[in-house]
Structures are given as C-alpha cells and as structure tokens.
C-alpha cells in the first residue's frame, strides 16, 4: 500500500512539474532582457530609468537630469544604484535607459556597443575625469618635494599605519574603481603597501579623520570630486602618461609604470531607447555641463546633506542658460 502511494506521489510530482513547464513554455517566449523593474513608472506612462553610481559626482548628473526630465519634459524618472560594470550589463538589458557618467570600460564598450549593438554612445558629459595619487595640502605645503613620486620613498616611514606594516600606506578605495596601483608600486619600486579601504564611503571617512588630526596620508583619488572643496588635496606627479605605456598596459596590466590618463567622461544610452528618439533620449544626448557645474551640485548633496532633488533645483534656478540648450526643440 505504501509502495503504491509512493509511486502515485512520484508520478503526480512528475506530472505536475511537466505541466508547469508546459504551461510556462505555452505562454511563448519571455525575454528577460526586456523586463523592467517592477517599481518603474507606477504613476504614468512616460518613464526613464537612470543608473546612478555610488560616487557623488554621478549622483549630481542624475539629480539634475531627473529634475529637468520631471519638471520640464513631464517624465517620471526612476533611479537604480548599481556598480559600474553591472550597470553596463543592466543598460544592455534595458533595465536602465542611460548611464550619465562613464570612466571608460573598453571591454564592455567593445562587447555591447560594437558587437551586440545593444548600447549606443551618448556623447561627452563635458566633464574631464582624472585619477591620480593625492596628498593633503597642509602636508604638501610643509614638504613640497613629496609632490614628485621620486621622493615618495623618503616619506614612507611617516605614512606607516598598522595595516601597512613597516611600509608606507597608499590608500585605495572601492574595488570597482579602475586602479593600477599595485603594479605602479611594484614597477616604480616604491616602499609602499596598497591598502584597500573597500568602499568610497570608508575611504572618505578615513581621509576626513586623518585631516582632523592633520596627519599626512597618500591616497588614490579622482577629480572632479566634492571632497576637494572640503579637504584640499594636491596631486603627486607620477611618470608621464604616454600611449605606448597605455598599450603596454593593455597587454599586461602588471607592467604599467605611468600615470593615469585624463578621460573625457562619456554618456551611454540603451540602444532601443536611443533609437526611439523620444524627447528624453534627445535631452540626455544634449546634456553637457562643466566640472564647476557638477561640483556645485555635488557639494550641496555631500557636504551640506541637501536632498539630491533640492540641490538640483538650486542649480537649475541659477543656470537656466545652460540647461535651456539641452531641451529638444518642439
């Protein structure tokens, strides 16, 4: 009796699974790369989803774009926070419509823009991004020669921390940021240990803490960033960036021995969204401002803790001549 029951259960289970599978495939295709977020556009039909990255500069772009799309063009805007590389994936799937600030992802660009054609270029953001090594101004003023990499070893002792052991500490940030620091330290024969703060939040907090005590530090950092307004930093000169060095680095990332390039930051749009030629797509393609504009908004968000929307509103009120040009002609 039990055996029979077991068999019927087994048969039943198999039949049920089969039925579910059949029912699923009966509905036809379901391309999950075309599905959007369940929270998107609950209120209206005209909607745009923007990817916002963790750093504040990117949040400022998104805040202003969002404000104008909502107030001038009547869209509803959703934002999704994801890291850079996954954001490319999301953009190609149409889960987000645009990335407002990209620092250069050649591999992704090749795959999605050139080969699969699921992502379209959206033009310059107007802001130049630069990565480098920086020290606090208060320290550089006292020891001006620290601003050349050749003298860094002299100061290694001063930059020791518990984490870096008997070497100097070079602080790096989030793992998602582009960095060659380990190779640089090795190839330039520097007496330093790269310590990863693990997230930008942790890195900023640590820098502010050092600054409060006027302690020296050496950190991987990037411009534009709102932190410069609060905590002035000076860049350490690394060996000059050349195309040869970059080419060499592309083949073997371990061999890089020159500074980081200065990149004009790019916008990218989902290909279907761009082709749709909606007023939002046109607006986002036209969106172009300067480093000062971006810093103005970032500063309001990050150090005065204004809500992003309000910070954007203030900038918009002050600079109508800048953004009026972005609106598509009717």
């Amino acid at each position, binding site marked *: 009796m039990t055996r029979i*029951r*077991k068999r019927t259960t087994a048969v039943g289970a198999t039949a049920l699974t089969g039925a579910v599978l059949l029912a*699923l*495939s009966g509905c036809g*295709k*379901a*391309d*999950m*790369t*075309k*599905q*959007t*977020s*369940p*929270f998107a556009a*609950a209120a209206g039909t005209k909607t745009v989803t923007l990817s*916002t990255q*963790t*750093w*504040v500069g990117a*949040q400022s772009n998104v805040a202003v774009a969002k404000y104008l799309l909502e107030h001038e063009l009547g869209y509803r805007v959703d934002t*999704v*926070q*994801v*890291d*850079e*590389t*996954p954001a*490319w*994936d*999301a953009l190609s*799937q149409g*889960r987000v419509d645009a990335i407002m600030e990209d620092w250069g992802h050649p591999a992704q660009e090749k*795959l999605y823009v050139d080969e699969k054609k699921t992502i379209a270029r959206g033009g310059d953001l107007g802001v130049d991004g630069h990565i480098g090594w920086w020290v606090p101004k208060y320290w550089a003023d006292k020891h001006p020669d620290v601003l050349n990499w050749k003298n860094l070893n002299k100061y290694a002792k001063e930059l020791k*921390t*518990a*984490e870096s*052991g008997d070497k100097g500490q070079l*602080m790096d940030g*989030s*793992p*998602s940021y582009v960095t060659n620091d380990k190779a640089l330290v090795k190839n330039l024969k520097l007496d330093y240990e790269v*310590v*990863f*703060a*693990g*997230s*930008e*939040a*942790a*890195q*900023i*907090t*640590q820098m502010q*803490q050092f600054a*409060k*005590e006027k302690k020296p530090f050496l950190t991987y950092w990037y411009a534009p960033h709102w932190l410069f307004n609060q905590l002035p930093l000076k860049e350490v000169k690394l060996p000059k960036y050349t195309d040869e060095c970059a080419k060499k680095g592309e083949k073997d990332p371990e061999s890089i021995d020159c500074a980081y390039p200065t990149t004009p930051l790019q916008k990218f749009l989902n290909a279907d969204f761009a082709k749709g030629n909606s007023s939002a797509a046109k607006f986002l393609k036209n969106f172009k401002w300067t480093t000062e504009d971006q810093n103005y908004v970032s500063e309001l*968000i*990050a150090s005065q*803790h204004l809500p992003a929307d309000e910070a954007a509103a203030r900038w918009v009120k002050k600079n109508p001549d800048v953004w009026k040009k972005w609106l598509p002609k009717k």
Partner: protein
Amino acid sequence: MSAATTSPATTAPGTASARTARVTASLRHGALGKLLILAVAAAVLVPLASAKWASGTWPHALTVDLSGPFGDASTWIVDNRDTHWFFVYFLGHLSNGVVVSVRAVYLCLLALGWTGVTALVTLVAWRVAGLRIAATALISLLVSGVLGMWVPTMQTIALMVVSVLVSIAVGALLGLAGGLSDRMFRLLRPVLDTMQVLPAFAYLLPFVMVFGIGVPAALLATVIYAAPPMARLTALGLRGADAGVLEAVSSLGATGRQRLLTARLPLARKELLLGINQTIMMALSMVVIASMIGAAGLGDRVYQALASVDVGAALAASIPIVLLAVVMDRTTAKAGERLGADKSAGPSWLRGRLVWPAVAVVTALAVVAGRLTGSLVWPTASVIDIAPPVNHFKEWMVDHIYSGIPVLGGTADWAAGFTSWVLNPLRDGLTALPWWGALLIVAALAWVIGTWRTALTATVALAVIGVLGVWVPSMNTLSQVLAALVVTLVVGIGVGVLAAGSARMEKILRPVLDVCQTMPQFVYLIPVVALFGVGRAPAAAAAVVYALPAVIRITTQGLRQVSPAAMESAQSLGATRWQQLRQVQLPLARPALLLAVNQGVVLVLAVVIIGGLVGGGALGYDVVAGLSTGDLGLGMIAGIAIVCLGLMLDRVTQPTDRRAGKGA
C-alpha cells in the same frame, strides 16, 4: 540571518543537564583514541606529503584554477541570455513572474494609500496578536512615513510579501516531503543544515550571473535563503507528532491523507508558525542586503546614503527596517502562542465570523478618507529630517573618543594596537602554519567534538579552500574571524552572565539586542570606520557588534535554564555567588555556551563581506570586488571559500550531540 538563527525559540538548549553528561562522557572516552588514530595517520602521511609537495602554504601543484571556466560561463550567459531556449522559455518566465507579482502587490499598496495600508496592517495585527502589537504596528508605519520613507517602505513590503509567500510555499513542500519520507529527510537534512551556515552575500553572485542585476535576482536569492527554516521546521513538526494520537487516528480507519490533514498538520502547527516567523525574519535581512544587486526599497536608501557618507540618512532608512522586523516578528510569534490557547484577540467587533468583512470595511473607509484628503503617498509636509542631528552626534562622538584620551588612548589607538598585537601575529601564524598542519588541527578538533563524519566534512572543506588557490587570503580571513570571535565571546558571555543574574538588566538589554540584530549590516560601516579607521580592526569591530546579541541571548537563556534546585542546593552548602556561577551554573549551561560559540562563529563569518567594504581585505574584499566589477570568477571562488570556512568552523564548534535538537 541573525534574527532567524538565534531567535529565542530555536536556540533553547533544551534538557541541559542530561546532554552535558553525555557530552562529557563521550569526550572522555573517545577523545584519546581518536587523537591517537590521527597521530598515527599523520606520522605516515605527513612525511609523504611534505616530501612530494613543499610544506608552508598550500602547494601550487594541488590547486585548480576555476576563474577561466567561471569567466567562460558568464560570457556564455551574456551572449545567450536573449536567445537560448532555457533562458527564453524557462528563466525568462520565472523572472517575468517575479516582476509581475511584485508589481501587482506594489500597485495594490499604492492604491490603498497610506491611510489604507496603515488601517489594514493595524487591524490585522490587532486581530492576530492583540492590542499592544497593533499599537506597535500603527506607530511603526507612522514613523516610517514621518521619516520620509513611505515609498521605499512600500517597495520593501511588496518584495517581502512575494518572497515570503514563495519561500513558505517552497519550504512547506520540501518540509512535507521530508516529514513524510525518511529517505527524503536524510537527503534534505545536511543540505538545510549547510544552507543555514552560509552568509547571505554568498547567495547573491550566482543569481546575478544568471538574471543580471535587479529585482528577479534579488527575490530568488531571498527565497533560497529564507526557505530552509520553513522546510526544516515543517519536517520536524510532522515527524514529532505524538505517536499515540496517530495510532488512535489510524485505528479509526483514517487514510494517509486524512491522517495528514486532520492529525499531523494540526499537531505541527506550532512548528509551522515558528517556521513562518523565521522565514520572514531571514527574508527581511536578505531583502536589505540584496540592495547591492539592485533590489530597490529601504536597503537601497541605506546603500545610497552610505555613498555620500551620510550616517543620518542611512539611519533614517534603517529605522523602518528595524520597525518592520519587530512588528513582523512579534505578530507571528504572538500568533503562534495564541494558537495553543485558542482564544482570539481584538475587540468584540473584530471577533467571530464577521472579522474579515469588518477589517475590509474599515480599511475601505480609511482608503476613501485618504483619497478625499488627496494624499495617497505620505504627505511631504509631515516629514521630519533626522539626518542633521544624527550626523552632528556622530561627529561629536568621534571627535571625543577617536584619539588622545589620556591613559585609555583613543579608539584609533586601540584599533592600531589590536591590528599589530592580535591580528598580525594571528594572520602570520596561520599563514606560516604548514598546510597539512592546518588540516590535522581541524581534523582533530572536529573529531574530538563530533564524529568522524563531521571531522571529514571539516577537513575536506579546508582542503577545498586550498585546491581553489585562495589559501593565503582564507587564512587572513580566518585570523580576523577568530580574533573577532574571541572578543565576541568574552564580552558576550560576560554580559550574558550579568543579564542572567538580574531581570532588570535583561529587560533593558532586550530592545537593544533586537535593534542590533535587525539593523542592516551596512549601517555599521561608517561609524566603525570613523572610530577605528580603515583596515581589519574595524572589520572585526563590525563583526563583534553583529554577533554579540546572539551570544548574549543564548548565554542568558542557558544560564536561566539551569535547574533552580541545583542552585538552591549550592546556596545551602554556603557557596558564594561567584562559586555558584563558576561551579554550578556555567558547567550546567555548557551546551548553551557551546551553542553560543557556534552561533558566534556563524554570525562573525556573515560579516566578513561587510568587512571587505571597510578594508578587511582578503576574501570579503574579493567577493565585493567580484560583485562590483562583474568578475564572477573572482567573486565566486572567494564566495565558495567563505562557504567552506563556514562549514569548517561550524563542524569544529558544533558537538554532534546537539544536532539532534537543532532547530526544534
């Protein structure tokens, strides 16, 4: 994860004294023999191994590089995601189903408006769990609104509703299978046991790999994470049914199905409700963590606030999470308690047959009222911004204790000291340990405390780490886990002893512990860095804060359950308070203390990845890096290594004797 694995009901150590006796007895008899066998085996194998491969860290010849295959797999998925039948006809529908159902719930919540949702939740809580909890629910929802978190809260609730329903369905089905068939039970048990040990983050990567970022991946990861307790408790409940009752029912001529529906399931309802309770708590913690892969809602707000180093805003988003957790926990727990008593709660008009129509009518009235006043979403005029004062307080606190305090030094100095004097030697020691030595130690520890099976699992787990080629970072992570564990145990058991001794102390502690356990782990990030700088010390501090509540709780309970008779007799023999504690209470509470150690290990390990965000480096950093750069090989290998570390530590600290009662 903490709230679930350590909720009071599961961790009650049961008949303490009987077990202690058995554990000690088995230890005394077995340990020597086992060690002897191991020593002999080592004497034969070690020279062979070290002759063939060098000692020191794991030999390179014995590693397998998996990053290539992982990379290929991920490229294949990206290339075929929109064409291959498996994606288009199966996973696509799965993901679509998730999106559609979450959206449906979300739109319903928005349509009810804040008045409707508040009325509905309060009334249901009143009916199910009584006036006090209804009041808590009401206040919690209002607070969420006042903090300006209404929409994210609704998003989180929508995710929760869907993921909890699916988890319960999946868990109950598995549990049913396990409860009715012995073979199924034996098959499920080790799987469920293992899943309970894994840190939540480890579940995220594979789902991101297949589904990409977004709600479907987040929700499915949540289901996998939250279903095991339901399955385990359902199976246990069904198996634990009173044999006499079952006999009686079958002698009345009931068929198998009738027996199941009329006797076994009703008898197991307490376990079923406990299962639901745990599933809800685990789902909530996972929904928050899943914000890292694009699940919107409260977790996302926390995550975004942290990006601009804004503790205040992060706290504003965390408070509704904690409140949601408290309300859901208390409601389901209370519902479970009331089941036995069989008396319904609530005012007279909420009783009897008319209950649900009454709830519906009042909710509808509230919805209409909300619509008339024209505010479906919480009115922005009544939002209070708590961020500035919280940030000021944080600054003030940090300024005063960061460094330069005479004699004590500041927190920064402690962190530096901890790193140089504890973490560094420990890490260097573990790394310098020859690999076969590490395997032997683990085998010995696990065998002495458990059976040859657990010893084998532990050793194999450690060996897998070596094979994956992440031996050195794993030893680094292990050193952080051990250091954090020791601090957690010293502080936790100390506080637990105090709390067990005074009812008032316990009363004060309880809400604090509740909050610590449900606060999203992200929130600790900035205060911890502000106090301890960047590095491994703050990572350890975050782990201690996270694991402490569970250890305190289990210790307190264990000590409380020591039989009063034993205490009485000790007292009458003239023992001082200290003697009582040391010679009667602590030895008798030994199983509870062992459980505290085990839970401490599991929880500390769960924070390893958060540690990666504050400079903990090693495996945690690799997982974060893998998640954020889409380097699935790196992330998956580190994730597997963390899982193996977890398995190994669990087996080393878990006496087999206790396993029979675990989860019951």
